[in-house]
């Protein structure tokens, strides 16, 4: 095996190694278990970064082993620019969530299992982005779901967690089943499970079947993206899950839906085949954007406010993809990354507020800016960013999405609706910040001390957000390259 193949294998083996160690060391204390998790994720991040030079040199980064030989199904992994963007985002978010978990009380019990599942969750996402075989893709896709469901079920908050975990599982699994139907159908029609080969032969699938497959793929992945009205699992799952899991769910796992859309219907069947669906994607995006923002405006639970904001933000992404323009798709991909960073930051802030005040209802919290000024600065940067304030991250991606909308061949009124609809994002973001951090102080506490374990990762993510916003060059370059890897240089 070549060095880059070893590195690629290491990206998926390292979390497994961590899981094995943690399962063997059942009585590990939380800090020790977290340390193992953090080291594994850190190593994965390092390995992923070390692979960039190979991609820059145009080398193929991948390997393949026979898995089910009789069916020609292989254990194949491959990394390209698109996979790199999602992989790095996912690993960084998991890393940040694990560091944040050190200051959090979740996972104090059965820590080794908790971090094992977090690593499996991360592995599921890594594998999903790297899988080159469609069945391997599905295995990782489901691993992601199973790990997250167990985390919610065992370490979640409230009495309703079994019901909510079940709801989350059923909803997302239904989406997964639609995806599975498509994958099997592709395999049956083309006789191959390799994505690389599928890129060349997918057009052989009859036209009517293509339409059905694209529809099922889009609905299946939109469930994962929590696009209205397929978002029903999201607010509850986000609310009940332990905070690190919420961070990963919102910041990383939602983006897997976007990855799926880009990797399957877009890349396999090409833009021309997506054309009939484009306007519906744009409309669904607008509805999701505005609906999510309005719900965030009406919601009182601070965790749910940010959860609904995810529904809204995914709407922007879907709109960008639906525009079918280069700028729009690039904006959508960039939005995934920026949204991940901002959402991680906002949930971290919410976690701090809940841990300090022990309150979740926004009307029972207020004036914390004068007591927790570092947190309030982080929150301010977070809300300005999610509102699309330049030059903080999301502005860049929104700019490209809107620009893509105007460049598309569809009515400019749709893009205008998206642009003007973004004012609702600003309104709910300001409401969130204003009610929590401004005005009279409530609830009254003896101390408003924020644990350093929570504050340091929050500050680090804030800093990263600012840097990413001011210097979008690297991400932009990766995104341009990823378009090439999706559309094969078209």
């Amino acid at each position, binding site marked *: 095996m070549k060095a880059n193949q070893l590195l690629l294998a290491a990206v998926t083996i390292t979390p497994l190694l961590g899981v094995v160690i943690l399962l063997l060391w059942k009585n590990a204390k939380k800090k020790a278990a977290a340390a193992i998790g953090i080291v594994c994720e850190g190593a994965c991040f390092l390995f992923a970064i070390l692979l960039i030079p190979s991609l820059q040199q145009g080398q193929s980064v991948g390997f393949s082993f026979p898995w089910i030989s009789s069916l020609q199904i292989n254990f194949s992994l491959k990394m390209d620019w698109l996979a790199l963007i999602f992989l790095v985002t996912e690993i960084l978010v998991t890393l940040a969530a694990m560091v944040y978990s050190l200051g959090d009380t979740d996972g104090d019990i059965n820590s080794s299992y908790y971090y094992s599942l977090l690593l499996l969750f991360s592995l599921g996402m890594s594998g999903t982005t790297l899988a080159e075989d469609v069945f391997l893709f599905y295995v990782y896709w489901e691993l992601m779901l199973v790990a997250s469901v167990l985390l919610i079920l065992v370490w979640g908050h409230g009495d309703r967690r079994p019901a909510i975990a079940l*709801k989350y599982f059923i909803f997302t699994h239904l989406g997964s089943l639609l995806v599975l139907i498509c994958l099997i159908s592709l395999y049956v029609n083309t006789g191959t499970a390799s994505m690389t080969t599928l890129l060349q032969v997918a057009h052989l699938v009859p036209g009517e079947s293509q339409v059905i497959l694209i529809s099922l793929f889009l609905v299946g992945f939109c469930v994962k993206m929590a696009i209205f*009205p397929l978002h*029903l699992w999201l607010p509850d799952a986000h609310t009940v899950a332990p905070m690190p899991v919420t961070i990963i769910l919102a910041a990383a796992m939602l983006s897997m839906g976007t990855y799926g859309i880009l990797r399957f219907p877009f890349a396999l069947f090409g833009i021309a085949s997506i054309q009939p669906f484009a306007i519906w994607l744009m409309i669904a995006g607008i509805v999701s954007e505005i609906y999510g923002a*309005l*719900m965030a*405006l*009406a*919601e009182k639970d601070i965790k749910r406010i940010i959860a609904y904001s995810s529904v809204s933000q995914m709407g922007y992404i879907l709109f960008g993809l639906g525009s079918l323009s280069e700028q729009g798709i690039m904006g959508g991909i960039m939005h995934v990354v920026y949204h991940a960073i901002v959402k991680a930051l906002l949930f971290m802030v919410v976690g701090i507020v809940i841990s300090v005040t022990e309150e979740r209802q926004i009307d029972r919290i207020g004036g914390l800016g004068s007591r927790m000024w570092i947190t309030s600065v982080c929150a301010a940067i977070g809300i*300005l960013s999610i*509102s699309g*304030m*330049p*030059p903080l991250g999301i*502005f*860049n991606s929104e*700019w*490209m999405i*809107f*620009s893509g*909308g*105007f*460049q598309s061949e569809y009515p*400019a009124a749709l*893009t*205008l609706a998206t*642009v*003007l609809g*973004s*004012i609702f994002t*600003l*309104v709910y973001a*300001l409401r969130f910040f*204003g*009610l929590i951090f*401004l*005005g*009279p102080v409530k609830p009254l506490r003896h101390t408003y001390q924020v644990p350093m374990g929570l504050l340091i990762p929050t500050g680090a993510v804030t800093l990263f957000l600012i840097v990413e916003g001011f210097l*979008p*060059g690297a991400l*932009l370059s990766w995104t341009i390259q990823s378009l090439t890897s999706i559309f094969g240089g078209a």
Partner: protein
Amino acid sequence: MMDNFLQIGLMILVVAPISLGVMMIVAWKGDHSIWLQWYLVILLSVLCIIGFQGEFETQEFASFLGEPLFFSVSSTAIRFLILLFCILLISLFLHQKMTVRPLISRVDTSLICLSITACLMAFFSGQFMLRYILLEMIGLLSAVMVGNRSTVSRSFTNFSTVFITLRLGDLFLLSSLLAIQPYSKSFNISLMLNALMDIPLHLQRWILLGFVLAVMVKSGLWPFSFWLSPYRESSKIFHWTPTILMPALGYYLLYRLSPVIQTSRMMSLIIAGGSFLVIFLLMLIYSSRMGKTRMDSRILSVSGFFAIALSALGSPQSLLLYILVLIVFRFSLSDLNPLAMIKKPILTLGFLTLLNGSALLLNFDFWPTYLFAGWVALTGFVAVWQWRAWAQSELASASAEMDLVYQPQRVFSWIYQNVEIRLFAEGTRNFAKAAHAAVIGLYSLIEVGIFHHGISRFTTAVSRSVKWVYTHIESGFDQGLDIAGNWLVRMSEIFLFRYEDGGQTKARGLMKNALTWINRKDYEAETRPLRLDLAWIPILLAVILFMFVFLEMG
């Protein structure tokens, strides 16, 4: 060599205010007013020197999202900047002369320094993306300034009002910019404006509307003037960014758009719309007495709409002069106390005459005669009505700042009450309330009612259905199987009885009967007396046999 020198100089000029702000924050804790004044004097001197160099463009100094960023220094921009910084300098000077004045804190200094940097970059920017970013920054700074200086209870409301409204203006601008971009393939301001002239009419109309709406919001023109009202509550020195700089940027945009507007088919619509709003607002002003601030706001709106009409009708020089004087006029209406003391009706009238007359004088050779006649009438109309309005505002006492005294005998009071008060003032409030109620309703109805409860009900219904299926179908199957099983068993029994058991019994009976009969017959045979007479039969048979033998032998 000279170009490089200018470029570096320009960069230093732009970066200097931020550096100064940081230095002041770190180094000096006292009143920063004097330092800012000295800095502004130096800045003005440098701007004058740059102004003498003529117009030039810098090389690309950075790129953002693949778009090259560069500065374009024009004499117009220099004029705007010199005027704006002079106003800031005068404000600071007057502020220092006040006997009771709020201290300019380190936060205030940093905000002003950031505003100066943003102002320089916005006016020098040769690229719309950069200018848009800076407009957003200035909007945020304006909101932070009002939030920082408002009372705790009003801080958030004021901040939100200013920020959201200015953001709305930015979104209008953004929509227009992005709609042009596919045609211009660039965000270079000159290229975009040139491309705008060639855009299909139906699209051009909407783009220009977006620009005009952005100008209206940024300049605080009616009905978007409400975002300026929170500044009444804050300390006056911090007005420069929101009330002078922001409108100036709006007017500067209008000035740049003027050539496009004049060549578009929107020209007549903008003239008509602008003129209508001028007259309409004057009627509103004339029809009521109102507090001075509201009156100032209306007068500035009248002048602003005048500028919009002029952008379609007048020469660029007249528009520029009008805008520059309008900025001075705006400053003269501000409440900086020492200046308010010297504010006399005659001075105001002088400003107004200059303001309206400037356009008149400069457009003498520009317009056809029939337009000129109309312009004279309109200008005279505006000047007289503005003066009357001003005279009315002078009558308003300080205690009646917010009170509105209607004059029911006036014809226009009906319009005032119904349009201004009911439609806009109360209408906006009611709309906000209704929108909020609608959002809550939407949340309750769809998210909670349909989705959340719907899912619960659906789950319950599914559970009940499953129970019913279990009770009636699954158990039915069980019962059916039981019945079928029983029936089969019974059938088997019947068959067994009939064909297996019955047959056996029958066979057994037959056998028994046979045996009994045999026994009986045996018994009968055994018990029956021997019949000797029958012995003759074998003897007879033997005789016959012998006879046959003999016969055969014979």
